């Protein structure tokens, strides 16, 4: 008996949604094996990783808090990915969003009205879009691969922020720490649930999910971008501008990532630090794929990915495991998803024992 991949006549719609579940379960099994190999009680370890962080009201708040930048970045990236525009620089666009909004907050330390949040959000979106516009321009004007340019700009953005908080924007009363002054209280996003750190950034992220759903499923431009992603030749024939899609894909991703940068700076952090995100911009790539580039899927996937962040922290505290275990789980999850996705386009065919025997005897016969 042998297994063989057979091409399906049409991609399976069911498998497209079963595959993330399979991947999630496989990741759990991998976690079970990993924890056992590290000499931890695997059931207790999985409990510490996936249950303990969200047992309390505060924990649930943290879950939604960390899910917000992930879903915001991921829906923005999904807009591009659906059109085959590979923006992988959301981390840098997030950083620029934080810099732009933070610069505004620091410029008005005496602000006394929460209305300052509105220009901060716009500044953040503009910052992210400006950063994303560079790869878009280089791609449309000079044919430069946007994967590499957007990624390079992540390093540039991080260094730019690092220079700002150690140089011109450093808090003079900050004991020489590389950090800006704290923002004024009104320049912080209001808390939604008392006793947690969950802030209004979550509502912005939810709104983005809704808008993205309308855009992807109900707008002509969204449809055109999808066509360009699935069948570039057909899109070209239909007169859909490839350049416009690249610009839109990059700018939407940049704006979303920039706003999520505002959410971090004006949210749990409240100032500018050398690093504004524990890799949300990269994890969002995984969220976008696990969520099937669909807003609803992204919402669910961002909760899962947020839980992986919390689980990593919890494992560090309770099991003395390195917090890098989070990155390990994130990568593993994406691997399993990509592997399970084969079932969308192919089915597993079994070449039965009889057939195999027949084939073998024919081969043998040929020899004899």
């Amino acid at each position, binding site marked *: 008996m042998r297994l063989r991949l057979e091409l399906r006549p049409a991609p399976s719609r069911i498998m497209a949604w079963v595959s993330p579940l399979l991947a999630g379960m496989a990741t759990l099994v991998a976690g079970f094996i990993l924890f056992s190999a590290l000499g931890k009680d695997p059931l207790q370890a999985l409990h510490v990783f996936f249950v303990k962080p969200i047992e309390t009201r505060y924990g649930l708040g943290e879950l939604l808090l960390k899910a917000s930048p992930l879903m915001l970045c991921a829906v923005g990236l999904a807009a591009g990915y659906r059109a085959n525009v590979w923006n992988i620089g959301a981390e840098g666009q997030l950083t620029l969003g934080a810099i732009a909004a933070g610069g505004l907050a620091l410029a008005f330390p005496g602000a006394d009205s929460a209305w300052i949040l509105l220009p901060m959000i716009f500044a953040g979106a503009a910052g992210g879009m400006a950063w994303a516009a560079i790869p878009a321009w280089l791609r449309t004007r000079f044919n430069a691969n946007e994967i590499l340019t957007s990624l390079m700009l992540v390093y540039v953005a991080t260094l730019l922020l690092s220079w700002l908080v150690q140089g011109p924007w450093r808090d003079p009363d900050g004991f020489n720490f590389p950090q800006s002054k704290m923002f004024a209280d009104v320049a912080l996003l209001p808390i939604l649930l008392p006793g947690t750190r969950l802030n209004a950034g979550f509502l912005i992220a939810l709104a983005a999910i809704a808008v993205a759903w309308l855009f992807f499923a109900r707008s002509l431009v969204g449809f055109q971008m999808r066509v360009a992603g699935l069948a570039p030749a057909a899109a070209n024939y239909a007169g859909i501008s490839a350049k416009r899609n690249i610009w839109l894909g990059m700018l939407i991703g940049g704006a979303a990532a920039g706003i999520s940068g505002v959410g971090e700076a004006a949210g749990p952090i409240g100032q500018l630090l050398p690093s504004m995100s524990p890799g949300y911009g990269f994890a969002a*790539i995984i969220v976008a794929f696990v969520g099937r580039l669909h807003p609803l899927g992204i919402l669910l996937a961002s909760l899962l990915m947020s839980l992986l962040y919390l689980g990593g922290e919890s494992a560090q505290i309770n099991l003395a495991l*390195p917090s890098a275990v989070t990155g390990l789980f994130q990568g593993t999850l994406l691997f399993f998803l*990509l592997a399970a996705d084969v079932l969308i386009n192919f089915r597993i065919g079994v070449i039965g024992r009889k057939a195999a025997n027949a084939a073998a005897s024919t081969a043998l016969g040929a020899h004899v």
Partner: protein
Amino acid sequence: MEGAADHVATLVALTLAAGTPLVFAALGELVAEKSGVLNLGVEGMMLVGAVVSFIVAATTRQPWLGALAGAAAGAAMAAIFGALTLSLMANQVATGLALSLFGVGLSAFIGQAYVSVMIAGVKPLSIPGLSNLPVIGKLLFAHSPFVYLSLLLCALVHVFLYRTRAGLVVRAVGESASSAHALGYPVVAIRYLAVMFGGACAGLGGAYMAVAYTPLWTENMTAGRGWIALALVVFATWKPERVLAGAYLFGGVTLVQFQAQAMGLAVPSQILSMLPYLATIVVLTIISRDAAAIRLNAPASLGKPFHPDT
């Protein structure tokens, strides 16, 4: 006068040392791409190669054994990529990204206990008499053995691709997988080998950084060199000898920041540290402008999955 010449020789040596990880990684990726596979996981493979080589070198006190282990680890990472993209036909771009993210996480995870460990790394060459010669010694006989190894590798890759039958087959698979398949060549097996060779080279590039160049392990120590190597392959228009030029150009750019600091220039270090990344963008842009040349030189099947049924 001799002082100035000696200074130049030092700069050349430092440039070669800084460019060598890129030579390894870019040559490996070049071979993989020549077979039609785009593996964006170079950064992850370099990091895993670096951490594994460091751990082996630290525990066995054999840095060369470490380098070997690093290359093997890079190849193992590439095998995961191959299993997904070649056997399971997963999207190469997405899988490559996954490999890079996974490599960052995996290397940080297994390397955590080794962050402040010191090892005796691979020492630069020291040939009595020759290495001490003024100027010439520094220019020719006093580099890290890895530098010579990378140059040898470049020559071998060139000869393999353009002067051997096996190299011709690899290129044929990269140009038209279905034609090569129709001629009876095992497309998937050839691509596995090319991808794993790429992984081994990336691992070796990471190992060079961990057991010779620095020699230490820090999280994310390759700092984007895997991505720069990917850009270098485009810059080199898929020609091995041009990889050297590109890699040393970047080696030189990396050096500028140290030189400027040594000369006391009043430019903040962070701004200078941006230079290699900005240079990558500029160079990639300049080379990509000529879309026709890219199309002409890029393997025609690059990034396209292959399944005999389709």
